[in-house]
């Protein structure tokens, strides 16, 4: 099992920013001239980091910088990171869609990559014809597809429509068929990029199950990119955390996921508005036993205590304080607002601690941005977007995938139900 399946050495990838096309002939000539004289490419300056929010000085951005790692055969590796951290670039290089600017990756075994489901599907062709076409595009031989044909159709569950053009398929059926083809590739290495965000819950579970079979049952190597920490944790045993084009951490999946949740949200940079009277100094999360939680990883349906420490300069009256939670799509999901409970505080100068006691946290597993809001009589004392981030996970005794978000929403009420017999 310790055999190395993929080995990457100093892999970097540079992209040119801005418009490509205007003035490129003169630039190409300059590059070519530099190359002839044995000099470095004048347009590839090392030292720029890939931070979307900041304006760099050159037109080149390093989407990946000096990535070095080894993946053992049979490992299921989850690649996580913020938008723009370089995950997709890494997958693109691994699937040979584009080549690295520097560095090499070597490995052993056929790679099947699923950067998108249904690549090359032709709407006019029937399901049957598309299975063959798509399979061949993914690198299967015709007899291989013929042999697996029934299995694929069965997995996708579209037997009745197999001779109908796929343009008449529902989008769910389309995706099921596409994933089914890819799932039946006989490859030693499987690369999957967030394709599971489609299809219904039953099918998502089926896909994850299939991928689990692939990695655990058949000893094949799986690389999986997703923002869904629950499925990453369920599927992978190792994790790579990318941030701004470099590997921040590589190791056991739980550790890496924890580290990920400590990274600040990059979608909304931390932004503070308000007065100088009150400032948040830190926030701490505890479980029911009052012991600190690492990585802001809270457990669904469990008792949690959150302590908010505030630096107060001048006395403020009638203060209400809120912790608000936004999901990854930036929607407000819920809040803990003292005013909602009719509680107003008087803050006196010094360091103050406010305790939030949550008997059962009912946010659905996932990542949430924490927003701090402090006001007094309608005046905003402090408003901080993206103060920190929490991850909600399912307690290990429940299966997280049994509750897809399409059904549950982001917040679930605490309730009981029973059958009532009127007689």
């Amino acid at each position, binding site marked *: 099992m310790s055999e190395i399946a993929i080995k990457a050495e100093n892999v970097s990838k540079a992209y040119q920013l801005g418009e490509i096309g205007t003035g490129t002939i003169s630039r190409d000539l300059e590059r070519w001239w530099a190359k002839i004289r044995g000099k470095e490419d004048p347009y590839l300056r090392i030292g720029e980091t890939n931070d979307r929010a900041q304006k760099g000085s050159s037109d080149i951005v390093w989407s990946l910088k000096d990535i070095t790692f080894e993946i053992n055969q049979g490992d299921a590796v989850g690649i996580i990171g913020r938008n723009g951290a370089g995950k997709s670039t890494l997958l693109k290089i*691994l699937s040979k869609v584009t080549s690295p600017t520097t560095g090499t990756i070597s490995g052993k075994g056929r790679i099947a990559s699923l950067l998108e489901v249904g*690549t090359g599907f032709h709407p006019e062709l029937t399901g049957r014809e598309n299975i063959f076409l798509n399979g061949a595009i993914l690198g299967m031989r015709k007899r291989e597809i013929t042999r697996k044909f029934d299995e694929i159709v069965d997995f996708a569950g579209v037997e009745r429509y197999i001779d109908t053009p796929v343009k008449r398929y529902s989008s769910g059926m389309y995706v099921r068929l596409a994933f089914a083809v890819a799932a039946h590739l006989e490859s030693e290495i499987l690369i999957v990029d967030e394709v599971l965000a489609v299809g219904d819950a039953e099918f998502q579970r089926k896909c994850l199950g299939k991928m689990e079979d692939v990695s655990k049952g058949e000893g094949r190597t799986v690389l999986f990119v997703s923002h869904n920490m629950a499925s990453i944790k369920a599927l992978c045993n190792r994790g790579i955390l990318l941030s701004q084009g470099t590997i921040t951490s590589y190791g056991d999946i739980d550790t890496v996921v924890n580290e990920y949740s400590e990274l600040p949200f990059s979608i909304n940079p931390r932004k503070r508005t308000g007065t100088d009277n009150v400032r948040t100094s830190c926030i701490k999360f505890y479980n029911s036993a009052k012991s600190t939680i690492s990585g802001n990883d809270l457990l669904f349906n469990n008792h949690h205590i959150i302590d908010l420490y505030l630096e107060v300069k001048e006395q403020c009256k009638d203060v209400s304080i809120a912790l608000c939670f936004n999901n990854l799509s930036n929607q407000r999901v819920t809040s803990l607002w003292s005013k909602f409970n009719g509680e107003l505080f008087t803050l006196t100068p010094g360091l103050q601690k406010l305790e939030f006691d949550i008997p059962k946290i009912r946010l659905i597993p996932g990542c949430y941005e924490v927003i701090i809001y402090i006001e007094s009589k309608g005046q905003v004392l402090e408003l901080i977007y993206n103060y920190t981030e929490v991850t909600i996970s399912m307690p290990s005794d429940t299966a997280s995938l049994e509750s897809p978000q399409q059904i549950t929403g982001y917040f679930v009420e605490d309730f009981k139900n029973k059958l009532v017999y009127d007689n």
Partner: protein
Amino acid sequence: MINNATKWEISPANSGFDLKLKETWEYRDLLGLLVKRDFVSFYKQTIFGPLWFLIQPVFTTIIFTFVFGNLAGISTDGLPQPLFYMAGITAWGYFAECLTKTSTVFKDNANIFGKVYFPRLIMPLSIVVSNLVKFGIQFALFLVIMVYYGGKEADFEPNRYVLLFPVLIFLMAAQGLGLGMLISAMTTKYRDLAFLVSFGVQLLMYATTVIYPLSIATEKYQQFSWIIEYNPMTMIIETFRYGFLGAGSFSWESLGYTTLASFIIMLLGIVVFNKVEKNFVDTV
């Protein structure tokens, strides 16, 4: 399965001299399926299906006969006019189609190329083969017209140079493919060339012996006829007419020149194409 797994290595863009022919051969099934896709998707939901392939050459022949044959009165080497034009149009059509379709291969397939790896050469090859199907149907029509004129005892006679036909097809495919790939490789960065192709192909047609025989061109415009003579497509169309209709100019030397030129164009095309292929996703 895992023990005899093949080793691979991904490295920065290569020189392009690796033609990857072996890898391409391993994907031959994909080639067949792509050809099938092109063909099937062309006639799906049509009544006449593949018959539509015939509309274009028939009408072009009628118009050429009227405009160039009757109005302008350009000689056709003593051949029946429709037969003369049809031969030129059929052969030229194949080359032109290969060229124009191949020249947009990166742009048309950017979506697939950006998501899956397979030897990119498969795509242009599939275009050339797909067009062969279309060419076959048009060629059958040409044969039918030949038989019709044969029945009317028109003045033409096929000879043993007909046997060069497969060679001619190969040479046309090589030129169309090579030139198309050169253009497509360059259009990934410089879109300007894409505008040039459609009307460039038309101009090129007039520099080829489609609507006039080579003998007239060399006789009337001696100082410019070298353009026509050194145009590698000219010899192909001339040989085609010579073999099937027995009129035109043919020499082994010029066929040799054409063969050499075709090979150079094709090799150049593949080399440039392979060089661009590795990183085109970033620039297209």
